[in-house]
């Protein structure tokens, strides 16, 4: 503890450096969040940091010159002369600045420095992105039909529809397997477990082409079932490994006493092991859920371009491709997709970190 006190002299320096790093880390996200609430036109005209008070030239007066002033000659304003170029760029006179407001109408702005903040904020971006804009389609017979573009809300529900079963199914299957690997002895146990460990870091890419072929043959492509199974299989090695680490650490007497009471393995597992494993299940569950929620590649391959099952990450990636400069849509869409992970992160940080540390090697 004496050492801790000795270090105190430099503590402000440590805090300062750490503060700067945290600031750098936070600023991109803050920019996104603020921009998502700004009107579309504002985003494109001024940087998002302009919502904070800052010094800027404010027009206090306008001077209208007579129409017959020759702009090629030095121009006289309030007793001083300026060139046209000077007025184009803005020229200082005292604490004021003169700049063309409308050159053709011979109008000059007189500006003074002042504190401004462009604080126009709106929820329209979110409304637009959630509900989707309305399009008017013309039919071949000339009739007009209004159709709503699929908004992000559909994609949100799709993502949830995919993420929940894709979390629950592999965790159940993996827990049963982990129990067998940890507490039952059978031929092939070592080999099979070694295969699962090997699969931990295998890149998904090695599976995609053949699995897609199978899926096409089975008609599973673009269906929920297909993507649940894919995510379940791809998540299984990690979940099995994680649950194995937990279940194999449980005390041996636990099983022995249950066995003496005549319980079967199935009963032991479902009555004893599962309830005991709740913290571990929560950790790895969160991990798998977020993995599926944030996934882009697997959805891209197995969902393709079927709009009714598209997930949010695909939707946003599409937006980036097709509406790359519509920052009001991009920022709000990205933030909506971040809501769930951020909520989980801040509410369940303890479990999240544990899941991450238990098994961070995923293929």
């Amino acid at each position: 503890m004496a050492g801790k006190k000795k270090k105190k002299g430099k503590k402000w320096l440590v805090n300062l450096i750490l503060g700067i790093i945290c600031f750098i880390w936070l600023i991109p996200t803050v920019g996104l969040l603020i921009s998502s609430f700004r009107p579309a036109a504002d985003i494109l005209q001024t940087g998002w940091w302009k919502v904070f008070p800052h010094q800027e030239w404010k027009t206090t007066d306008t001077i209208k010159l007579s129409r017959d002033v020759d702009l090629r000659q030095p121009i006289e304003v309030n007793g001083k002369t300026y060139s046209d170029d000077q007025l184009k760029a803005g020229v200082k006179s005292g604490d004021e600045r003169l700049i063309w407001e409308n050159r053709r109408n011979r109008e000059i702005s007189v500006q003074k420095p002042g504190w401004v903040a462009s604080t126009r904020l709106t929820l329209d971006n979110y409304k637009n992105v959630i509900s989707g804009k309305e399009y008017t389609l013309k039919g071949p017979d000339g009739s007009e039909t209004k159709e709503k573009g699929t908004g992000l809300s559909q994609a949100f529900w799709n993502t949830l529809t995919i993420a929940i079963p894709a979390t629950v199914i592999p965790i159940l299957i993996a827990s049963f397997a982990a129990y067998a690997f940890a507490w039952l002895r059978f031929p092939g146990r070592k080999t099979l477990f070694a295969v699962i460990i090997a699969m931990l870091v295998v890149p998904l890419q090695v599976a995609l082409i053949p699995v897609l072929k199978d899926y096409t043959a089975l008609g599973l492509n673009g269906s929920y079932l297909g993507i649940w199974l894919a995510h379940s299989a791809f998540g299984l090695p990690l979940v099995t490994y994680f649950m194995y680490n937990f279940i194999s650490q449980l005390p041996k007497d636990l099983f022995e006493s249950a066995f003496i009471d005549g319980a079967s393995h199935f009963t032991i597992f479902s009555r004893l092991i599962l309830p005991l494993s709740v913290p571990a299940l929560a950790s790895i569950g969160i991990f798998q859920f977020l993995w599926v929620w944030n996934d882009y590649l697997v959805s891209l391959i197995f969902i393709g371009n079927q709009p009714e099952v598209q997930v949010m990450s695909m939707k946003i990636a599409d937006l980036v491709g097709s509406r790359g400069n519509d920052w009001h849509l991009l920022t709000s869409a990205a933030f909506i997709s971040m809501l769930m992970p951020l909520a989980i992160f801040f509410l369940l940080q303890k479990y999240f970190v544990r899941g991450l540390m238990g098994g961070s090697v995923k293929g």
Partner: protein
Amino acid sequence: MNTQAKKNFSLKAALLFVVVLLLNIFVHGAIFMLFRDSTLNPLLTALFAVIWGVAGVYLLYLSFSWAVEQFPEQISRRMLPYVFIGPAVLLLGWLLVLPALRTLYLSFFNASSDKFVGLGNYLAIFSDRLLATALRNNLLWVFVGTLACVALGLLIAILADRSSYERIAKSIIFMPMAISFVAAGVIWKFVYYYQPGTEQIGLLNAIVIALGGEPQAWVTMLQPWNNFFLIIILIWMQTGFAMVIFSAAIKGVPDDILEAARVDGAGEIRIFFRIIIPYISTTLLTVTTTIIVFTLKIFDVVMVMTGGQYDTEVVATQFYRQFFMYRNFGYGSTLAIVLLIAVLPVIYFNLRQIRKQGGF
């Protein structure tokens, strides 16, 4: 029990087992079909899926366990483990292990998988300019990305350990880990955004202008330096991971060792290199390999930021392009296998590690 009765008992159990097996295949097959062809409201589908996922999987294990228990004790004891691991093994086998072997097989064939080309695809990877660029960039990602993540993670972990705001600082650095690469792509695209003219709305260009520089289109121009701007996104997201794990490891360094070193007059930097680093070397290795494996497969960021254009292609994006756009299964498979070969040392390392720990 005499042998005859025992045999009858086994026969009956075997029959029951077959019935349970058929019943399960039938019921789950029917649900499977129902799901495949259903046009229900997605929310309802999700609800049913969760119920099926939980109850169905549970019943699957329950029914098979019950059927196996009908066998005489010796037999059932041998069968039961396979009931427990069965679904996991089948799912993994179908969707991961066999596909990996099939991909290996396909990598020796041409684009449409009908002509054997031997190692032709592998040679092409090193001669085709696009593929070679992908390889070069991927190496850049692995080296620069991993090095920066590990170094920064370590630095921040040490700083946080000594600061008064450890919890909040760690939360901030760690937060990007939770969001998707696609969302992170949008965030950083906005930071790097460039538009002609003097008014820049992208943070980076605004800073450059404030410092008296010229605005740049960071991600599209400046090849090959644009890759570094993409790698920064990875660093932003993954440093938190390294930091959290290092932080836990650093806390495990015994205080008395540090104390003794300080009494002997060692400075903080010397303590860091001579005591802390050797003490957490295993963790250092694990984190490094994890980030290397992760970075090898980098895909989303590049896809969202540039789509692989402007010479930012990596192996995974090139894989996608070959597979989906050019329909070249030969190149696609080969690229996937290249990734697999790259992680082979890690697989070996993991297996050895597990064997050491768990007696496997």
